[in-house]
């Protein structure tokens, strides 16, 4: 990382001239123009001419670590200077950097995106793109950065590293709109062995997985290769390993699926994901390891997963109890689903607005595009509140401009989130309805078993002995207190009460 002093000299050598010609003020950004229709905003004074030296002063403030003062001066300069001025793009760049440093990432991203679109200064462009790349790793405006910048950027004259990233993004957008052939053209230009190449492979495989109905061994092998690719982040490798597990489960290779689930690496003391435990529980159930499966269901009762939307949990628990002929607990476990999700089921049955149900809404907001939209909305809300904190230091014009910008961005983020939520909440409601139906069937079956006549001479099935602890193992009795390091290790000792028929 460059120290501020080195960075300053490097940047100054790169271009910004210190003499600036006075010129007519540039038009306000598009967002600011349209924001006139928005709610009452702080009134800003008309743009006045600024001393060209303000750019140098702002740079000095920036490298002295005073981003608030620097931002106000850069903004004044950008407002009062023509786009054709040599320092205009630099001023935009440092304004963006100052805003990002102050935690106003969206506003900073907006100026960086303007640099990328206007391409006024070739020396600033790669730096702006690098900054935008960093912004893509946190909640960001996907339309503004991914689609309008990286998705439509002219790839000529870009440095190799940036061009790889842009190719990856353009391919990703092609994949999203369903054009795999175009996407592959972009991905083919990625450097073999680069991080982007690995991520592109993952994106293509995920897209194919979504489009194709059946799982194939080739897919398993491809995902397995990615799961062991050290160039990918741990999260992506885990996703690949989860995909391997799910595909193997589809192929009825339950032991293989279990091996894959066990290879999902969690950071120390990380609680993991509810879906991971539930899927592993299903695999163990299919393998007849019902005590371990029951242990994983115990894990899902941990406080950290209390708000997770996993209706299958109740169904699987009821199935295990039923298999061991514990009919009353089986019935109770089955009923627990309808009891716990009574409100949500009622909302579905009454055909009310599904997004009004907090449980369904939370479940829908917890994954995929809806989750990204939700996180962006949260970050915009937070940044909007942060603007108020800098009201004094920013001055009236910048404050008014940022207030309008964030109001608009918030409205757009809210609209985007609502749109995605409407789609995904329906999928969650379907999931719940399917589980509720299964549970009703289970209740019926358990009811039949409960009142089944016992034949003369019937005997209890000899209970399976609990496996003894190995010398290298240690057991802690569970008394309701969950420890994160134990979440994958619970084992339930449950004797079969079946008569005449063997447990699964």
């Amino acid at each position, binding site marked *: 990382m460059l120290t501020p002093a080195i960075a300053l000299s490097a940047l100054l050598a790169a271009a910004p001239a210190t003499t600036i010609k006075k010129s007519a003020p540039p038009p306000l950004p598009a967002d600011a123009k349209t924001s006139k229709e928005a709610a009452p905003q702080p009134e800003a004074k008309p743009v006045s001419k600024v001393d060209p030296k303000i750019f140098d002063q702002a740079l000095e403030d920036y490298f002295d670590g005073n981003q608030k003062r620097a931002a106000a001066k850069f903004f004044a300069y950008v407002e009062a200077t023509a786009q054709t001025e040599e320092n205009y793009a630099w001023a935009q760049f440092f304004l963006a950097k100052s805003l990002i440093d102050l935690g106003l990432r969206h506003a900073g991203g907006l100026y960086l995106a303007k640099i990328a679109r206007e391409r006024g200064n070739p020396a600033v462009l790669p730096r702006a793109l690098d900054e935008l790349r960093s912004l893509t790793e946190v909640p960001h405006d996907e339309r503004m950065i991914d689609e309008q910048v990286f998705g439509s950027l002219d790839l000529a004259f870009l440095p190799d590293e940036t061009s790889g990233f842009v190719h990856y993004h353009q391919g990703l957008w092609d994949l999203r709109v369903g054009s795999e052939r175009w996407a592959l053209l972009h991905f083919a230009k990625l450097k073999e062995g680069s991080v982007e190449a690995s991520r592109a492979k993952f994106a293509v495989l995920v897209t194919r997985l979504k489009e194709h109905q059946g799982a194939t061994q080739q897919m398993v092998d491809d995902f397995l290769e990615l799961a062991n690719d050290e160039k990918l982040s741990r999260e992506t490798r885990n996703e690949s390993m989860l995909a391997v597990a799910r595909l193997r489960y589809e192929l009825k290779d339950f032991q293989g699926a279990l091996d894959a689930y066990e290879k999902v690496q969690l950071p120390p003391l990380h609680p993991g994901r509810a879906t991971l435990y539930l899927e592993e529980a299903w695999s163990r159930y299919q393998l007849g390891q019902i005590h371990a499966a029951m242990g994983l269901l115990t894990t899902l009762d941990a406080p950290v997963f209390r708000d997770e939307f996993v209706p299958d949990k109740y169904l699987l628990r009821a199935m295990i109890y039923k298999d061991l002929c514990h009919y009353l607990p089986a019935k109770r476990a089955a009923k627990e689903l309808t009891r716990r999700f009574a409100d949500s089921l009622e909302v579905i049955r009454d055909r009310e607005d599904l997004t009004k149900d907090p449980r369904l809404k939370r479940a829908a907001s917890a994954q995929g595009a809806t989750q990204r939209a939700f996180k962006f909305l949260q970050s915009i809300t937070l940044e909007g509140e942060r603007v108020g904190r800098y009201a004094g230091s920013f001055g009236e014009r910048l404050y008014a401009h940022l207030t309008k910008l964030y109001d608009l961005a918030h409205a757009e983020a809210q609209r985007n989130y609502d749109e995605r939520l409407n789609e995904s909440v329906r999928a969650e409601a379907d999931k719940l309805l399917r589980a509720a139906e299964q549970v009703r069937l289970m209740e019926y079956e358990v009811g039949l078993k409960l009142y089944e006549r016992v034949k003369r001479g019937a005997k209890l099935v000899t209970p399976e002995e609990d496996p003894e602890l190995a010398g290298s193992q240690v*057991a802690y009795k569970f008394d309701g207190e969950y420890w994160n390091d134990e979440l994958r*290790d619970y084992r339930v000792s449950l004797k079969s009460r079946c008569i005449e028929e063997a447990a699964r």
Partner: protein
Amino acid sequence: MRKFLVVLWLSHSAVAIAQVPELENPGTIHAVQEREYRLNHELAFGVGVLPLDAFYKGLLLQLSYTTHFSDHLAWQVARGAYSYNVDTGLRKQLIRDFSVNPTAFEEVQYMVGSDIIWSPFYGKTAFLNKSVSHFEVFLIGGGSILNLANSTGGPGIFRPAVNFGLGARLFSSKHLSYRLDLADNLVVSKDKGIFNVPTIQLSAAINFGVTE
């Protein structure tokens, strides 16, 4: 007859009530984990004190080697400790004020010994809900030979002792742990009978030869 029926009804109800929790939540739950820390060959460097004697306080430096047969049983094959003794001033006061013969005061110079260690307790604890630490508590029993000498510089004499005590170990990593040993050497002497030499020690133990 009526009394019998009442007793029968009550006992039946009691049995039924006792069965309710078992019916509702059958089974028991354990967290079964691979033991995270296992010891094999252990070399420990410790510092400690001999706190009991009113005439001097010994500052101990100890080196020991222990071999672990299992997670519960180990043999501290050898330990050797040197004591740097610091006078408390009581000796001078006795000589000056009461003319007590200095040879009457014996001090531990060094000691060697060997012990069996039994570790029945192994557990874990949470630190500020941020991290989990593992520990074990053990009992020590063995023998020692102490070299005792008086402060006037005469030749030291060897005394046998029975050593017993308890300790705790906090695991830091698979190769490093910290031990706190509280032990007492019960010294057998013909002329002075039996007397105690307790020790308090803190050691850093290096574990090597771990296979898993």
